[in-house]
Structures are given as structure tokens and as C-alpha cells.
């Protein structure tokens, strides 16, 4: 099973090296596209395997768990890898036209692939320290992508981004060290076995909090989300799309993994904290969005708010809630990345992302308007798009668990989300362009148009499919949630597997 598990990671690495060698030629960008395509195939193979055989694990270097490093994939990991590959493919096609040759010449596509590899690595690892390594890979690659271009704004955002994330990874590393000091192991499945046996459970909870804060920074939850809005609106659009789609979700994934597998000893405390964090994240995020007047900034704050919903699912910890969180995670990646891609096209033809400076997109680029409308209203939770199901599941989970107030918050935040989405719609799409420009898609040459719009359309179609035929996806999320809440299979597969 080893190669099934390592390919989704090694393919982007390979693509990165190749893209780097070809960085001064247009073919470098195509390598990135091909690499993402190959990764998608590999991840689908992985998914098929997991669906057929349940949790699969592979021991790197042939050392038995918990002594070596284990790669492991349950349904959650598998779906995250698939969605990562989909996003990578979409964004790499988009990047063909979005990334200027000068930036590409600095190794943009290589870094992009490294980032994807890091994300996939984080989803597939079964080892805590290894997770840290992938965090570092992601961090360094994302920093590179963020500051590429070297404008003052970018560097300012990049420095904040890297400083806060470094601090959080240091906290993560400290947590790993202390946890190792208490349990003597790094393997997550092994930790699930040994952590409950630790005598000093209070210390375990302290470490759990360290992980919560460290992952919380990554996931951009309240009150640790500052770096996100500071950084996400500055780089190339393809960069912000892949960031928005994937990076915070790695933090959410790590939270879900650790707080369903390892830190489940004191749920009444840890998950209560998560519940409050979720509520505050939802509210502050959407309020932040309400205060913004820039296409990308509004979207950035929405990420924060949406993360709150996923955390909410984890915090409630019921089967339906975890199901909702998984569903939300997948839906959100597709939709959010897509919105940033749309913002890129809008900025390209209308000239800016500040809402006051653009307009007329509905009249002159109706296709783009439709392509915006789908992810935007999906994000806002309108049926029958994917976001409706995601919100619906979580609200229902909250109500069934007796958390009426939380359900109320979730719904109220939904209303505010609608409101700020309509702000973008009204100002960028309906209002005539302030300078009387006619932002038409035909301004772009055919190749550019295709490479920008194809991924957007593809992701939009995906959103509609998930929305109209939610059953298989909900069923899948249900199975995934089952595996998370009943981790015996996971633990046995990891610890029992011998090469």
C-alpha cells in the first residue's frame, strides 16, 4: 500500500523539481498542470483503495509502527487529498494565464507544487512530528508564493504571515516535545492508545490546548486569525485561491484529527472551548467581512467566518456534527478557491478589486456573473447549492444536541454572509463601472480566457453537482465521520500493519 499512499505526495514533488528546471520556459507551467493531473489520478486511486479496503496504512522505510513513520489514509484523509488535487489542477490551469513570466521565472510553479505536496503530506501522515514537517514545507512554500513579486504590501503581509505561523509551529513543536516526554511516542494511532494511560491527565489537557492554539493559528480561528486577512489579499490570484482553499483547511483537518483521535479524554472542557471558539470565529469573521470594501478582503474574512462552522462541527462531536464538518470542509475548499479565481478575472477585466473602482460586470461579462453567482450563493448557503447542505447539517446537529443558541449564531452569521455577498454582487456586478469602462471577457485573448474560465467553470459545476445530488457525498461524509468517531479501525490498521 506504500506507493498508493506516497504517490499523491511524490508526484507534486517530482513536478516541482521538473517545473523548477523549466522555470524560464512556458513548459514549466504546463509541468505544473500535468503534475496536478497526475496527482488527481493518484489520489483517486487512493480513494478507490480506501473505499474498498477501509483505512490503509503504509510504513515508510519498512519500520513497523510506531517506530518509523506511518502514512495512513482513512476516508477523511483520502477525500482531502482528492480535493487538494482538484484544487491544484484548477489553480494550475488558471495560473497558466495568471502568473506573469517574471514571477514564473523565480520558480512560482515549483513552489506551488511543493505547497501542494506539503498539503497532501499533512493529510496523509500518521505521525505527529511528520505533520510538523509538512507544516514547515507548507509554510516555507506559501511564504515564497506570498512574497513573490516583492511589492511592499506583499512583504508586509508575508512577514506577518510567516512570523505568526512560525510562532505557532514552534508552539506545535513544543507541544510535540512535551507530549513525547509524557508518552514516548509520536505515532498518532499509538498516541490514541497511550494518551489515555498517562497518569497526569491535566498535563495532557494542557498539551491539548497547545495543539489547539497552534492549529488554531493555522486554521485562522478567533482570536488567532490576524495573519490571514493581512496576507491573503496581496499575492497573485492563483496564490490566494490555493491559500484560501487549502491552507486553513489543513489546520482544521489537524484539529479534527487530533481532537477526535488523541485528545478525547476531557471532551467536556476541550470541546466546550472549541464551541466558543467556533461561535466567536463565525461572528468576528463575518463582521470583519461586513466592514470591508474590497473583493478579496471580503472573501478573506469570509474564510475566517466559515472556518467557524467547521470547528462547530468538531466541537459538537456528534455523528451528524462531524459529518457536517467533513461535508463543510470539502464544499468550502471548492467554493472558496473558486471565488478567489473569479475575483482574479474580475480584477483583470475591470481593473481593480476595490469595489468602489469596479462595476458593470453583470452587463458586460454575464458569463462571469453566473460563474460568480454559483459559488457566492453556495457560500452564503442558498439551496440547492452545496453550502446549503453544509450549513443545514451543522445547524441541525446543533439543534439536535440542544444547542439552540449556537444554531441561532450559525443562522445569523449565515444571514450576514448573504448580506456581504450581495454587497459584492451589487457593487462589482450590477453597478455600472465608475469610469464607464465596459469590462468584457472578450478583452482577453482566447488562450487566456480559456485558462482562466475553464477551472472556474469546472469548480462551479462541481458545486452544483454536490448541491443537486448531495446524497452520495453525505453518505460518504457519514462513513468518514464514523471512522473518526470510532477510530478502532484506524488504530488497528496502523499499529497492526507489518510490512
Amino acid at each position, binding site marked *: 500500500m506504500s506507493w498508493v499512499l506516497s504517490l499523491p505526495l511524490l508526484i507534486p514533488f517530482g513536478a516541482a523539481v521538473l517545473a523548477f528546471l523549466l522555470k524560464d520556459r512556458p513548459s514549466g507551467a504546463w509541468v505544473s498542470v500535468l503534475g496536478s493531473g497526475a496527482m488527481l489520478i493518484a489520489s483517486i486511486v487512493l480513494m478507490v483503495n480506501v473505499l474498498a479496503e477501509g483505512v490503509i496504512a503504509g510504513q515508510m522505510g519498512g519500520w513497523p509502527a510506531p517506530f518509523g513513520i506511518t502514512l495512513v489514509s482513512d476516508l477523511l484523509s483520502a477525500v482531502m487529498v482528492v480535493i487538494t488535487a482538484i484544487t491544484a489542477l484548477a489553480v494550475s490551469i488558471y495560473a497558466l494565464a495568471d502568473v506573469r513570466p517574471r514571477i514564473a521565472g523565480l520558480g512560482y510553479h515549483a513552489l506551488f507544487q511543493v505547497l501542494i505536496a506539503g498539503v497532501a503530506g499533512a493529510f496523509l501522515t500518521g505521525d505527529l512530528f511528520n505533520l510538523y514537517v509538512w507544516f514547515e514545507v507548507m509554510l516555507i512554500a506559501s511564504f515564497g508564493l506570498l512574497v513573490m513579486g516583492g511589492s511592499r504590501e506583499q512583504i508586509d503581509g508575508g512577514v506577518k504571515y510567516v512570523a505568526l505561523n512560525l*510562532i505557532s509551529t514552534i508552539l506545535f513543536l513544543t507541544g510535540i516535545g512535551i507530549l513525547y516526554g509524557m508518552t514516548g511516542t509520536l505515532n498518532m494511532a499509538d498516541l490514541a492508545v497511550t494518551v489515555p494511560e498517562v497518569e497526569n491527565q491535566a498535563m495532557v489537557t494542557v498539551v491539548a*490546548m497547545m495543539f489547539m492554539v497552534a492549529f488554531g493559528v493555522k486554521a485562522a480561528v478567533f482570536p488567532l486569525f490576524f495573519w490571514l486577512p493581512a496576507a491573503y489579499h496581496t499575492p497573485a490570484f492563483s496564490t490566494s485561491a490555493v491559500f484560501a482553499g487549502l491552507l486553513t483547511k489543513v489546520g482544521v483537518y489537524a484539529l479534527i484529527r487530533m481532537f477526535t483521535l488523541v485528545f478525547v479524554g476531557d471532551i467536556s472542557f476541550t470541546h466546550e472551548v472549541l464551541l466558543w471558539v467556533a461561535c466567536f470565529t463565525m461572528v468576528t469573521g463575518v463582521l470583519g467581512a461586513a466592514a470591508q470594501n474590497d473583493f478579496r478582503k471580503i472573501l478573506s474574512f469570509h474564510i475566517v467566518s466559515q472556518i467557524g462552522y467547521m470547528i462547530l462541527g468538531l466541537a459538537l462531536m456528534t455523528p451528524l456534527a462531524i459529518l457536517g464538518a467533513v461535508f463543510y470542509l470539502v464544499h468550502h475548499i471548492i467554493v472558496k478557491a473558486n471565488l478567489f479565481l473569479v475575483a482574479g478575472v474580475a480584477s483583470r477585466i475591470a481593473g481593480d478589486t476595490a469595489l468602489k473602482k469596479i462595476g458593470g460586470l453583470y452587463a458586460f461579462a454575464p458569463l462571469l456573473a453566473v460563474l460568480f453567482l454559483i459559488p457566492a450563493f453556495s457560500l452564503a448557503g442558498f439551496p440547492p447549492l452545496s453550502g446549503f447542505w453544509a450549513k443545514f447539517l451543522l445547524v441541525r446537529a446543533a439543534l439536535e444536541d440542544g444547542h439552540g443558541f449556537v444554531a*441561532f449564531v450559525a443562522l445569523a452569521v449565515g444571514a450576514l454572509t448573504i448580506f456581504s455577498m450581495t454587497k459584492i454582487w451589487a457593487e462589482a456586478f450590477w453597478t455600472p463601472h465608475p469610469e464607464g469602462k465596459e469590462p468584457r471577457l472578450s478583452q482577453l485573448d482566447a488562450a487566456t480566457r480559456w485558462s482562466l474560465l475553464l477551472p472556474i467553470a469546472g469548480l462551479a459545476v462541481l458545486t452544483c453537482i454536490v448541491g443537486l445530488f448531495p446524497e452520495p457525498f453525505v453518505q460518504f461524509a457519514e462513513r468518514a465521520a464514523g471512522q473518526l468517531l470510532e477510530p478502532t479501525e484506524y488504530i488497528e490498521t496502523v499499529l497492526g500493519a507489518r510490512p
Partner: protein
Amino acid sequence: MSDGAHFLFLIALLPFVGALVPGVMIRAGRTACASFTAVPTALALILLMTFAPAVLRGEVIQAEIEWLPQLGLSASFFLDGLGFLFATMILGVGLLITLYARFYLSGDDPMGQFYTYLLLFQGAMLGIVISDNILLLLIFWELTSLSSFLLIGYWKHLPEGRQGARMALAVTGSGGLAMIGGMLILGNIVGSYNLTDILAAGDLIRASDWYLPALILILLGAFTKSAQFPFHFWLPHAMAAPTPVSAYLHSATMVKAGVFLMARMWPALAGTDAWFYIVGTTGLITMVLGALIALFKDDLKALLAFSTVSHLGLLTMLLGFGTEAAAVAAVFHIINHLTFKAALFMTAGIVDHEAHTRDIKRLGGLRHLMPVTFVIGTIAALSMAGIPFFNGFLSKEMMLEEASHTKWLDSYYVVPVLATLGALLSVAYSFRFIAHVFLGPVRDDYPHKPHDPPFGMWAAPALLTVLVLLIGILPAVAEPIVTAAASAVTGADLHPHLKIWHGVTPALYMSILAILGGAVLLAIHAPLDRAWIKAPRPEAKTIFDGLVAALAAFARTITEGVHNGAISRYLAIFTVASVGLGAVAFAGGGLSERTRELLPIPPVIAVGWLMLIVATVSVVLMHRARFRALVLIGIIGLSISAGFAYLSAPDLALTQISVETVTIMLLLLALHFLPKETPRESPMGLKLRDGLIAIAAGGGVGGLVYAFLLRDIDTISDYHIANSYEGGGGTNVVNVILVDFRGYDTYGEIIVLGIAGLIIYALMQALLEGPAARRLRNVDYSQDRSRDRHPLMMVVVTRLLMPIAIMVGIYIFLRGHNQPGGGFVAGLVIAIALLMQYMASGFAWTQARQRIEYHAMIGFGVVIAGLTGAGAWVFGLPFLTSGYTYVHLPPIEEFELATAMLFDLGVFLTVLGAVMLMLYSLSRIARYAGSADVNVEAMDYDPSERQSDAEEAR
């Protein structure tokens, strides 16, 4: 499922499928577009009519397919009297609107879009009324909000249209969300989301603790949609939409969705005090208030909008009464209101279209110019006023009759008096509509000379007025449908008799009073109007805008408060969060007995430890002087290395020393281009706060470490030590962990290092192309700089050291698997040797002798390490599985060859490449910044020149 029930799916789908038609047909011309838009609607209507006999007999038609069974959602539809009534209204008026819009929209308006949205809306609305699953109903409910948003904002160039659309969506969308909550609670109580089940479980629902929350949430949805007080304000603003939209959505269908919902839920929710007081009272207030405002509106559409609000209030009130007779009246009034109000809206649209104004004060006398329109408008308005022989009279009488014997709290008067007042106001504004638009003298200052529109435009309202008269004179024609619908609402078998004359009843007196009073009000309208304009009154729009602005301001305060751009604040919040959560988590939990004793501390170690502490504190205190801080950091690093060595970790010590050296050297180079001091500090108070936070955090982590160090545990490292030689072929367990046990980690880490090198390069590249390069060139370094770039001694020594250092590097590399060392350290050692060449002999000199590009070196490193790992697949082993063998070549002793070594080579190359690339990047700045008057080549410096320079200077 009865025969043909599956046609229900077809009915529900037709509008959605049809929504694709206009987009295609618009190229065939406007008439063709409109005709083809009518086809799906007409088809659906015909299909619906095939069910008419069965439904009117009281049968319920059901059809179901699974959609999302896990969540209790199925695509199930049912058609009973109520659904049939609404579906007929939606499709019937839909046809009329299609016809009307064909003539109403101008050539500049994108007609295809209009019809697409219209059909989408129609489908959503139809879905609401025939859903048999409340989740499905919710979906359609939200869809109507969405499609109406697009329709209201159809004239996107109008700011009022955009604002009205956003306001409508914000209000109705939020209401919809509340309803989601309510429906979910309802589903929880009943255990099913099937409407049929829920309607049958009324007693269970009303007895539940969750009844009130569910009721309130569902009513929020209904009230927002049906524009009930205090949510009525969006409806008048939605009138910025084209008139066909107003006629269709905002009088005939969408706003009735809330009323429909209350009627639909009647068996499940009605019959309690809560229902009566919430629904009944809201309806009553809305009815009176709406009518009052309508009387003073000069915009024809605004008048009609508020009149609609008022009539919706009337319907709500009737449903709120909770009696069967009231339900019959409500159902009947739904039909009547539809006919006259849609006709009135279309009339208003015609007037607007022809006279180019809707301002009542600029109109009047149109009966001579537009006789057809006059007749249509008058008939409809008289019905709205509730004059006998028009259908509005019948249902209004029934309403007054019900009101006359309804007790509110302990009062028998509140409801009848207010109901009469509402009716009176209604008469007044209806008369005003007739009198001030059509009667009076012909004016000569219309913005556009009006005349009757083409037949196509007045056909639709004319047809509706025929219905008005037909029902008004022969009420029995409406009896079957009213019977079926009212029975469906109440769940009882009702047989109402609709007739004009009920005898001398209280309602008759109330009616007469209303008509007379209304006539009087119209007579004194002018002075009243002046008083109204002067009187201060709360504008709902202003309040709403104020709320939105307040929200935005609040949001901005919050956001900017925590998000002010200062990184120190972010770090403080981060640290406080970590420490606080950790402290709360630990609070109360004790610790077990410790199992280890502290070791004695030798004096030398104590001194080293002290040095470490002093150096650390000094860095904090002296960080403003960057150079000094760097020196101190060096001391810290060395102390830590010494600590590693003392604690028997030679590998770590070796690594730490070389990392330390390289870092400090690179930092030194970088420091050159930075200001000598850091920027101004924060004030003392802030420093104190940050200091306390930092101490708490450091203390916390220290305490945790101290706690676990004193307690024994089993770790996986025992296994590593035991298997290092056997399995990994090396006696140096640290190296075996790095390249074998956890080679996968190392693989990731070398990539991090490589990328870091590339990024520094890329960043520098970008900087040097930007304005920073110009600044660099202009920096004046001449003051405190040696004139000799390449001190002779240093050049000689470094060149001598070079081969030795490389030897050492290779040695460290080779022994790594068994003795302290390895690829990482070796890479750093060789990097240091090369670094020194750069420093001593200069960038150009060294670069000229550099054969391998650093970028490539990093690439090769990663590729070699990766391929080594992947090579294991060839043997069917997992990624990174290592193998080793012992080789004996005659001249030298037997030695070991391990694949791990190859992996280590990858590490070596990457480390070397990355470090050198960083140096290269820094040197590039130096070249920009360098002044031309110093020697470029190493060792071509003649000290005597310096002498003469100095003399010259003197």
C-alpha cells in the same frame, strides 16, 4: 400514489426546464421569446387542470422519490385543495404576466434574462405550494428569495433597484434562515420532515416544550416573506422592480408565500393562545398601518404596495383567528385579492408606461384619454374598496363578520373597531386611486401624452377584472375551489356557502361605516395630506439603513480593534491565548509523584547555565544594537551546543555548532544592509505588559518540561537503539534515525531548506528590480569602512584551509552512519569553507571558480534523496526502505555501503546548495551596494596607495 401522480414532478420541473428557453429563443425575436416562455407555463397549467376534478372532490395526490434519505429529505410532492389553489394562481397569473411583460419591457431591456428569472421564480414558488416535505419546501422558499433578488435588481442601473433587491434579500433571506431553524425543531418534535406527518401530529407539536421556539422561528419566515409589521418595509422598496415583477411577485404570489405557509401549517400550529396573539395581532397591526400609509403615498406603485401590505395583514389576521370560518374567509380573500390587485398593478404599469409618471399628484383626468384603462382600473379599485357586486366585498364582509365576534384579551371592541378602521382606510385609498388618477379635469402637463395601450397590454388586466365581476356577482362559481382549499387548510370537511346577501348583520353596518368614512376621508384628503407630510414619523427604511450602518461601524470597530496591523499585538494575543487556555486546562488537575531525582549540578555546568541565562536576558535588553545582539545570540548557540555535548549528544552538538556558525555568518552579511539600530520602542507600560506575558509563557513551558522530565516513561527510542545496527546498518543511532527510521521527515526538511534558499534568492531578485536597488546604490558606506576588501592574511588562511575543510567535510559525511556526523553536518562544514572564500577573496573571484550552479545542487539533492527512497519500490518495499551490504576492496579494509548513504548524499547536496544560494543572494546586494573605489580582485591591493590616499586627505 394515484394514477398520473408522477405528473406532479413534471409540473414542478417544467418551469425550471423552461427557464432555459428564453435564453435560446431571444435571438428569434421578442414575441417568439415571450410565446415560448408561455409554453412551459401553459403546459404545467394544463397538467395541473387534469388533477382538478380529483382535488375538488377532496382527494390528495401524492408523488415521492428519494433525494437525501439520511436527512429525511425526499423530493415528494402533494396536491390538495390549498396547493391546487395556489398552483393555479401561480401558473395562471404567470401566463398573464408573460403576456403583459412582452409589451411592457422596452427594447433596451434584456428580455431573455427577465423571462429566465421569471420562470425560475415561478418554479420555486410552485415548489413551495406543492412540497410534501418541509425541507424541500425550505429549499424552494430560499430559491424564491434568490430569484426575486435577481428580478428586483433587474434594472441594475437604478440604485434604488440594487438597494431594494439587497434589502429584500436580507430581510426575506434572514427570515428563511430562521425558518430553517423552526422547521428543524418541528422535524425533531415529530420525527419526520414529511408535511403530511407533521400536519397529522398537531397535538404532539402543540404540547411540546419546543412549540413556542418553533412557532416563532417559522412565523419569522412567514412574516418577513409576507411583509408583516415590523418587516413590512422591504416590500415598497422592492417596487423599484419592473411592474410585471411587482404584479407577479409582490402582489399575487411571493408575498402570499408567508400566508400560504401559515395556512399550510394551520393544522399543526394554530389553535393556541400564542398563535392567536402573535399571528392575529401582527396581522391586525399590519392591516391598519399598511392602509394608513397607503392613503398618503403619491407613487401609484407605493400606494399599491402598502395596500398589499395591508391586505396581507388582513389575511394573516384571519388565519390568526384560528376559526374555520376565518380560514374560509382567508382562502376566499386570497383569490379575490389576487384578481383585483394584479389588475391594479398592471393598470399602474400601463399608466406609468403611457404617461411616463406614476406620481398621483401629476395625474388626473385620464378617463378621457385612456377609457379602457379607466374601466379596468375602476372595477379593480372598487373591488379593493369592498363595494358590493365586486368580489372584494364578499370576502371583506366575511372578515368583518369574523372580527365582530373576536375577543382580544378581555376586550370585545379592539378587533372590530380596528378592522373597521382598516376597511375604512382601504376604501379611502381605493377611491383616491380612482379619483386622483382617472377623474378630474384633463391636464396638459403630463410628461408624455397618454393614450390606451395596445390590446396585448390591457388584455391581461381585463381578464382579471372579468373574474372580479364574475365572482362578485355569482360567488357560487368560486365555491368548489374555496371549499377544497379551506378544507385542506383546516383539515376539516367544510361546506361554505358564498353569497352576497347575508341579511342585516354587524358586518353590514361596519361595511357601510367603512364606505362612508372612506368617502369622507377622500374629501378631506388634501389637508390631511399636508398634516401627514409635516408629522414626524419613523421611516422604516431609515431605521434599516441606520441598523446596517451601525452594524458596519460596529464591525469596523471590532475588526480594527483587534486587527490594527501591529504584529506585537497579534503575538501578545497569541501568547495570552496559549497561556490562558493552558492555565485553565491545568487548573484543578494535580500531578503524580515524581519518579526521578535531580542530578547534582557540577560548577562548570552551573557557570555555563548562568552564561546562557545572562546572554538570553541580555539579548532582550540590548536587542536595539543589532550587532551586539548577534554576538549574544552566538553565545547562546554555543552554550546550547556545549550543553548537548555535556548531555552526551555529540551529534546534536556538532549540528548545532555548524548551524550556529552558518547562521551567524549569514546574519552578519545581512546586518550590513540593515540600519544599525532597531526602530523606536513601545512605551514602558507596554513593555512591562509584554514582559509579563513572555515570562508567563516561558515559565509555563519550562514548568511543563520540568514536570515530565521528572517522570519515567517508555519511549520508542529504546527500539531505535536496539535496531539501529541490525536494521539500519549503522551504529550512530541519531544518523540512522535521520536517514532511515525517520528519513521521511528528513526528506521533508531538506525540501524546506532548499526552498528557503530559493525564496531568499527570489526575494532578492525582486527587491533588486524594485526601488530598493536604487536606495542601496545610494547608501554611503564610506565612513567606517576598510579600504581593503580582501585582507591578505585572511585570503591566505582561507585558501589554505579550503582543502582541509573539504577533507573534514567528506570525513564527517562518510563516518556519519556509525559515528557522529552525517550529510547535514558535512554540508554545513563545506558550506562554511566556501563561505570563507567568499568573505576573504570576494564574490567575483569565488564565483568565477564555481562550477556547479547552486539551484541545480538543491535540485539534485532532492532528486537523489527522492529516487533513493523510491528505489525501494523496485524491490517491492515501502518508500525509503534502506538496504546495506559490506564490501571488501583489496587495498582498503572492509566497509559498508548503505542506500541510506545515498540518501544522506541528497541531504548533503541540498544543505550545501541552499546555504550557498543564500550567500549568493546576499552577495548580490553587496555588489549593488559596493562602491567602485575598493579593490575588486583579491590580493591586488597595494598598501602604499592607501598611504597616499591618507596623505591626500590630509
